[in-house]
């Protein structure tokens, strides 16, 4: 950067120089030469005034649009108006108005700045010599030698204790960075033994033995006559918060009475007549599967196109899911409403390492296969 032929002015000289001279000296130090320099229009001439007005117009416009934005943001009707009511157009224009005024203000301000540079600032043509970017060979070699010399003189090579503790500190710092991310992934799924959340859903009967009703999203309990043949209803456990529990959504199917459905081993009697209940949570990564094709009996997952076949006991027939959807055993209570006879006999949702293994605390296997 430092110059060869242009001497940098000293302190006394700087104090004497006018701002114009300082600017010229700075340019000279950077090897910039002005070829042309001067005002765009003669100051005070009609052209000069015209330029001034046109720049001011853009800034005025920008200010006006900015004010309009503030006004629209505060007072324009922004609450949703249905199509059946008057005033939807005003509501629908809220976002475009906000966007147009804000964008317009920024655009006008930008144009104003560009116009000011072109029309008000002095016209100039400057030439700057191109510099070679790299430092000199001497600078580079001497810097590298300095660093190596410092390390050598400190004798780090022979100080094993420093090296070891430094490595430890570095490793621990890496651990500090990694542990908040990895630590959240490491959990003991059996921490609460038989009550561990991976195994238990809100369908489990209450402590006093009360079986949980199948309810619609508004809490209405479901009776067999509510469903027509060939229908599917999404039902939730009839407990507080049941419709919000991530592992509890269940599809209740009523198939036509002549439909043959494969019952998985150990799950005989889980159905009630033509009514079958399966978890709605995909066994791949836990999306809600509910694209039910009532003619083919297939249930599709919208996330990764897994397909489960209801007629085959909800085994996956296509896509990345590998386990069938768990079946919820259902029966009727004294008042004729559907209840879950017991919780799922396997874990719902996506797989995890311990799934399908024989937990030591459990008396029966939670096998995931049929």
């Amino acid at each position, binding site marked *: 950067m430092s110059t060869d032929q242009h001497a940098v002015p000293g302190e006394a000289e700087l104090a004497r120089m006018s701002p114009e001279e300082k600017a010229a000296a700075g340019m000279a130090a950077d090897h910039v030469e002005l070829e042309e320099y001067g005002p765009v229009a003669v100051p005070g001439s009609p052209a000069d005034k015209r330029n001034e007005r046109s720049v001011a117009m853009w800034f005025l416009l920008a200010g006006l649009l900015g004010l309009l934005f503030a006004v629209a943001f505060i007072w324009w009707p922004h609450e949703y108006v249905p199509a059946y009511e008057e005033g939807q157009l005003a509501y629908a224009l809220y976002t475009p108005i906000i966007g147009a005024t804000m964008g317009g203000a920024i655009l006008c301000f930008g144009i104003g700045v560009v116009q000011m540079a072109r029309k008000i600032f002095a016209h100039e043509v400057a030439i700057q010599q191109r510099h070679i970017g790299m430092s000199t060979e001497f600078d580079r070699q001497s810097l590298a030698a300095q660093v190596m010399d410092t390390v050598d003189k400190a004798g780090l090579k022979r100080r094993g204790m420093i090296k070891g503790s430094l490595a430890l500190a570095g490793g621990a710092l890496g651990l500090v960075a990694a542990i908040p991310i990895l630590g959240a992934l490491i959990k003991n799924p059996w921490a609460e033994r038989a009550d561990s959340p991976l195994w238990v859903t809100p369908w489990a009967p209450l402590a006093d033995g009360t079986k949980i009703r199948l309810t619609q999203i508004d809490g209405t309990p479901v009776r067999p006559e509510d469903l027509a043949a060939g229908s599917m209803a999404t039902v939730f456990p009839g407990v507080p918060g049941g419709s919000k529990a991530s592992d509890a959504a269940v599809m209740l199917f009523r198939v036509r009475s002549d439909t043959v459905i494969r019952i998985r081993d150990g799950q005989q009697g889980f159905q009630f007549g033509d009514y079958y209940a399966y978890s709605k949570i995909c066994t791949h990564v836990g999306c809600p599967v509910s694209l039910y094709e*009532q003619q083919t009996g297939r249930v599709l997952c919208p996330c990764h196109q897994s397909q489960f076949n209801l007629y085959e006991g909800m085994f996956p027939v*296509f896509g990345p899911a590998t386990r069938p959807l768990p079946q919820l055993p259902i029966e009727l209570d004294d008042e004729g409403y559907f209840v879950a006879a017991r919780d799922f006999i396997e874990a719902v949702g996506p797989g995890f390492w311990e799934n399908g293994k024989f937990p030591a605390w459990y008396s029966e296997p939670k096998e995931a296969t049929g």
Partner: protein
Amino acid sequence: MSVNDTPPAAEPRRSRRGSSRRGRLTGRRSKSMRRITGTLALLLGLTAMGFAFAAFTASANEANVATAASVDAAQIERGASIYQTSCITCHGANLQGVLDRGPSLVGVGQAAVYFQVATGRMPAAENQAQMPRKEPFFTPEEIDDLGAFIQANGGGPEIPASGLRDDAQIAMGGELFRLNCASCHNFTGQGGALSQGKYAPNLDPATDEEIWGAMLSGPENMPKFGDGQLTPEEKAAIVSFIQNNKATIDPGGLPLGGFGPAPEGLIAFLVGMGAIVAATLWMGSRA
């Protein structure tokens, strides 16, 4: 029946005339004679009244049956003839269906007929993965006739004549739509793919009646949503939600399917980036 009316109606009149004549002759007749004629007159009058009553009630009954039967029978008759010319090949002579061609129509009800025929899906042009929507082949009257015919043979769900909308409940309708319909028909009713060439259709062209009919009858692979599962009030809210969605103004002019920020962002990125690159090239070419 009006022919039967006259004789019993005439009889009481005659009997009244008889009694007045009797009044003039009273003096010349004995008390017992008067008693006998009086009794006879009473008997005659009562009998006549009985005949008249029987005649009136009979005529009223038969008139009712006749009008009801004539409207329905004619409509069902017309529906039957349409069925025999346009549907019988695939659905069978007795609505029992034909293997590999068409399903049984016993018990599907007017709702299914209306949905399939009013949307032009039936009569089908050819057998394929799914019947596409097309211009309806029959007039609305013919569709009603056909519906009456199918309804008369096995019953089934019917689309109600009114109350298909509940514009005050679009929020509830939206919640129910997202729970029950959106997985296949998309959040804004744009439809979506199913397996093996099948698809959930776009709801944009669907009318209130068609949506209601689809919910009631479960056409093709759509599950049924009977009135026990979604009450008529809930159905009306869903219909209102769908129609409100379609009627909502798009001030930008290009809704991009109403899918929301993802496609909008993609278009903004591609078009906006493209514009910036083009402007940069233009500026470079002028420098």
